[in-house]
């Protein structure tokens, strides 16, 4: 379990994370979504004790990272695939990590096999592709067989086969009862990988819920085809709906449900050829959520220019 309690992190005058509180539960994959610079990596660094919160706390299994007695056996993390010495072989990199936490070297060969790097175990990690680097980072994260796992942008640089492997791997880790916390800016990937989602923007929590909850709250539009389109538009406008797009006899209404449109059409004797709710994708939901976060905490561009 990972808990953030009113965690705030400032770098000088810049607020990277502001009063962030959430709990990541075991047993499911939790996605951590936010645009670039929203504070995802800072949050993960605070959880791992690399960055000290300016105020508030970040806890793993109820403890600060620094106070864990068996760090690698409790928490595994992939922060940056390039966070290793480029001149050291993959096997020696993992052996050095293993030795510090008294993990037997046999486990090193085991995890190299799990991530599919056994053939290049003695090659220098600096020569690895981004995808191979991610696999090595994942190998390092699972080295101590920990119950809590954090992955920062793990699918970056992976090929489609690798992405599918990672997705299934995360699912199996969660199914074993582990806490799996995965950050990404790839919403479409998160829709397939994660069950729970935590969305942040500008260092603040925007939404926390299941993937289906988050897509449901996004205001989808409704596609309508009708021979009496003008008449219908007036009726819908009276009910508070608005026109999202208009093309010949088809129109998309926003801010109103399909049920409301159907009833309104029946009341007025308007024929409908089609009435289709347009389900918002997670990506649209995400854009909508983060756009509003930029609005409420952002500065007007003209003021920002001379800051």
């Amino acid at each position, binding site marked *: 379990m990972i808990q953030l309690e009113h965690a705030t992190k400032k770098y000088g005058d810049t607020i990277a994370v502001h009063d962030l509180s959430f709990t990541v539960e075991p047993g499911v994959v939790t996605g951590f979504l936010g645009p670039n610079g929203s504070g995802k990596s800072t949050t993960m660094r605070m959880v791992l*004790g*690399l960055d000290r919160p300016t105020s508030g706390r970040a806890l793993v299994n109820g403890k600060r*990272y620094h106070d864990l007695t*068996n760090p690698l056996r409790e928490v595994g993390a992939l922060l940056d695939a390039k*966070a290793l010495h480029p*001149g*050291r072989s993959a096997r020696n990199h993992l052996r050095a990590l293993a030795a510090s*936490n*008294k993990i037997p070297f046999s486990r090193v060969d085991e995890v190299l096999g799990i991530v599919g790097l056994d053939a290049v175990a003695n090659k220098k990690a600096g020569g690895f592709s981004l995808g191979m680097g991610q696999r090595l980072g994942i190998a390092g994260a699972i080295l101590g067989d920990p119950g809590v796992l954090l992955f920062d942008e793990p699918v970056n640089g992976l090929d489609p086969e690798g992405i599918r492997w990672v997705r299934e791997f995360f699912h199996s880790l969660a199914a074993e009862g582990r806490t799996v916390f995965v950050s990404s800016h790839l919403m479409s990937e998160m829709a397939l990988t994660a069950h729970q989602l935590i969305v942040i923007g500008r260092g603040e929590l925007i939404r926390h819920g299941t993937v289906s909850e988050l897509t449901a709250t996004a205001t989808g539009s409704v596609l309508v085809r009708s021979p009496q389109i003008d008449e219908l538009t007036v009726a819908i406008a009276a009910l508070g709906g608005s026109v999202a797009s208009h093309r010949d006899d088809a129109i998309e209404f926003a801010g109103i449900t399909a049920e409301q449109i159907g009833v309104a059409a029946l009341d007025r004797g308007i024929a409908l050829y089609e009435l289709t709710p347009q389900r918002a994708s997670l990506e649209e939901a995400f854009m909508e959520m983060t756009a509003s976060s930029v609005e409420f905490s952002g500065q007007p561009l003209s003021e920002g220019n001379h800051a």
Partner: protein
Amino acid sequence: MSNHPTPLSIVRSEWIKFRTVRSTVWGVLTLIALTVGFGALISFASAGHYSQRDIEKLSFDPVLRSLSGLFFAQLVVGVIGALAITSEYGSGAIRSTLAAVPRRIELILAKASVLKITIFVIGEAVSFGAFSIGQMIFASTKVPLADRVFPELTHVPSASLGTPGVFLAVFLGGVALTLLALLGFFLGLIMRSTAASISVYVVSLLVLPILTIFLPSNWRNDISKFLPTNLFQGMIATHHSTDAFSPWMATGTLTFYVLVIGAIGLALFSRRDA
């Protein structure tokens, strides 16, 4: 469970890191080449010159001559020391290191121990090695009868470890290299950048002595004996001038520098974000 990280397991991990990068191997090879190889070359050359200048004969110090290569080695050990920590910052590996060992003071003490033990063992080996090779060269170089200042001397004078002060000087040669490696390491810990820490190290070793030339002469000796290079020289000297510290004083002063820089480095490291 007894398998949580211990100081020994952290040292073991750091030893794996230290020996599995090529820069360490190159650093150690350069260290051997400079001390033993270059030392032998200088010993050979000064043995050849011995007959040609009378002033040479009177001031000839076989111990210091054989250890000349150690002066160049000062730079190499500082670089090895700095790289032991700055390479982790340069690559970002410090983050996976700290995730594995969040107890920062223990981590740095383990890193410093690995560096200290390795450089001490190699430093003593090259110091005694360079000394022995130098003495063999001197002892086997004949001096023509006409050139002899002391008629009973048939060969260039050489020293033996049994002579008072000689063993200490050669031993402190290895100690000095160890202390300087730690100085480079802690500068690296403070500055986190390879280029910055090596620059500061080189300036304090090579540039500061030059700057003392511009000091008033009555201050110059008082100040210059505190400079790292002169402390180093004091540690391996067998003839003591009043301008320099005694070997033990020099060792103590250099150790004090390492402790001060180390304390600053540890204080910063335990507070800073990684």
